[in-house]
């Protein structure tokens, strides 16, 4: 049924991304977090690797190799380097994938070639809302039909908002259904204010207020047969869960190595069962979570509905990523609390999975 080994091609992609993440992303993680800036050269390099383009349709300049499983492998490796930088790299896909999946031919032709060609993120996604019960399936943001198009009202937050952004996909409720609208970043009535969070400090994000934003009829993504954005939430969750596994495995590796090096009471702390069992638990939980992600991705690749599996994966990684990163801080003791070391950064980032949602990250 499910094969636990990646194909040769997937392994090659994974290893390439892993090398990039270890060599070029990880060393920049701390600086990016402290300065609140994504290193441009890393984005350019990621673009060269074609990490987003690869999964988009060939007709518009992509590689036509869409696979949720491959996407999950890539996402995990990138986040193993750093979550903020991984999200910045994947940000163009937040618009490009949904357009590819749900857009009409005209929408694809209008948006995809530029999204694929540009090294800067021209597109982004506005899904979450600044409320405790933010619900991706039932946004409070409303879209109403007008004589010649649509009118949007509402508020969004946690929107990746790079300087280069030109279009944002806004999820809104139309009557009782979920729909996506491509909104130019300069649209009248759209206001973006930078926001800041506990984690993902390097990723520029914004809170959006939409106040009577007028859009033409063709702004709505509705080229797919059922025109439903709902199906894409599962794809978002698979991608996010894969990222969370990457964060957790980074924390685990740091903790494991530290525990073997650090001595207390005359022996490596890893020889204390309190530490050894903690590390063992981390390893078990990470592998379990990763398999949930793979299973959901595998279903998506077979064209099946993966809502349940994706939700299980997301539910699991929320806890696992938090516990493992918190555990890494603990293993580092006082040093874990200091910003010279990475565990505290991983903990802050990991907590974000409690409220991140996306569409079609893979």
């Amino acid at each position, binding site marked *: 049924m499910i094969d636990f080994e990646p194909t040769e091609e997937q392994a090659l992609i994974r290893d390439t991304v892993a090398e990039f993440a270890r060599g070029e992303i990880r060393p920049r993680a701390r600086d990016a977090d402290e300065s609140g800036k994504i290193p441009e050269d890393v984005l350019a390099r990621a673009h060269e690797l074609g990490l987003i383009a690869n999964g988009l349709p060939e007709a518009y300049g992509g590689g036509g190799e869409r696979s949720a499983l491959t996407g999950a492998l890539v996402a995990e490796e990138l986040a193993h380097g750093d979550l903020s930088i991984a999200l910045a790299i994947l940000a163009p896909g937040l618009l490009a994938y949904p357009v590819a999946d749900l857009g009409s031919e005209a929408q694809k032709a209008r948006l995809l070639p530029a999204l694929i060609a540009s090294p800067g993120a021209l597109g982004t996604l506005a899904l979450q809302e600044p409320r405790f019960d*933010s619900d991706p399936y039932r946004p409070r943001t409303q879209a109403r039909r007008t004589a010649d198009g649509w009118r949007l009202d509402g508020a969004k937050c946690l929107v990746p908002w790079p300087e280069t952004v030109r279009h944002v996909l806004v999820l809104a409720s139309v009557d009782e259904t979920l729909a996506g609208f491509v909104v130019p970043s300069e649209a009248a009535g759209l206001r973006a204010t930078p926001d800041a*969070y506990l984690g993902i400090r390097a990723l520029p994000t914004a809170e959006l207020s939409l106040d009577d934003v007028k859009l033409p009829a063709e702004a709505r993504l509705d080229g797919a047969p059922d025109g439903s954005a709902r199906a894409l939430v599962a794809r978002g969750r698979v991608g996010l869960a894969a990222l969370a596994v990457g964060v957790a495995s980074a924390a685990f590796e740091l903790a494991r190595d530290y525990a073997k090096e650090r001595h207390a009471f005359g022996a490596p702390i890893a020889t*204390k069962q309190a530490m050894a069992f903690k590390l063992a638990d981390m390893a078990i939980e990470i592998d379990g979570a990763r398999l949930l992600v793979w299973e959901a991705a595998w279903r998506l690749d077979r064209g099946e509905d993966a809502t349940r599996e994706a939700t299980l994966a997301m539910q699991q990684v929320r806890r696992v990523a938090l516990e493992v990163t918190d555990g890494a801080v603990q293993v580092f003791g006082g040093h874990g609390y200091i910003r*010279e070391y990475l565990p505290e950064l991983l903990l802050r980032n990991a907590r974000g999975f*409690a409220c991140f949602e996306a569409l079609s990250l893979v």
Partner: protein
Amino acid sequence: MALEQMRPVSRRYDEDEHALPTEWVDYYWQTGRKGAPGSLGGATDGFVQVCIQAEELCFGDAGLYLRMPTAALGGSAVSAAGTPEQKERFLRPFRESPHPIWGAMAITEASAGSDSAAIQTSARYDAERDEWVLNGTKIFCTAGEGASQIEGGFVVVWATVDKTLGRGGIKSFVVPAKTPGMKLVGLEKKLGIRASDTATLVFEDCRVASANLLGGRAKAEKKAEPARAGDKGFKGAMATFDASRPIVAAMAVGVGRAALDFLVEELARQGVEIRYDSPPRSQTALERDVIDMQAELQAARLLTWRAASMMNRGRPNSLEASMAKAKAGLVVTKITQKAVELLGPPGYSKKLLVEKWMRDAKINDIYEGTQQINQLIVARRILEYSSSQLR
């Protein structure tokens, strides 16, 4: 005090990491100090009271609490192990100094944290001048900036007079602020409690009068029985923790309560009531989470008060102090993390203080004996194993 003096500047001194929160420090020195003892030093009675104050003030802001001009842990050490003369000499300035001053305690070194008996900082007795000469480097010293730099304050420094004696050779010395040879070489950037200074102090041929050896000259001169006299010194120093762990546990409870109270108020504002009177199966997951969090916090608080009240009655409380610290450190870490989650994107945002409380809470699981070290102490006691039988 917590809501009016601390909360309004919470965010500012979290962001402006190494700045001295002058309005708060001055306020506390002029006003707060008198009304609210709050000080970690001195008190051996009214310990529950001290814990309640610690909770209240950390409900305000744990970072600012740790930055209060008090004798703090240094004071606890002087109270626990000092002679009456030493208590008077070192603690009086905290009542009388015209300007704010700080006390601190420096045990931890780069390669000795949990294993405090492995410290390398040395103390050599210079008989000619009747002084002790300290050499070594201490890290993670809370309030170490103020305590080492501002006249009137002091740092209690743990050092070994003879490495071959192991923990038996460890003694503590009071090093007054500005003593030549004591240098402030760095301040840490941290996950949380950023208003609190965490200093690296270097001691280079730093000389202190023999009268500054905590516990007094008499004990130190029992050369005939150096090991036993010394071990008593170490135990005396460790006894500081019996007094300080309940306070740290109370501080933790304060941070947890800040997040939990806020969560409950915010949910109420959004129309979510917690129905304590309905059976668990008909409560929502959210209600159950909140009830769980409240139960955990209250259990931690009661463990804390019990350890403190035993102190009041002069009963040995090291088991209970470690229980309280282990429980409180862990539950507030979890409660604040959960509060961020339950508040959704706003919980994760810097617009609210909940994310800060999550960062502040975690330290309680680490300092004053990590979670694991306190579990170890509890385990030894309940299993009746010695420290060599269970490590």
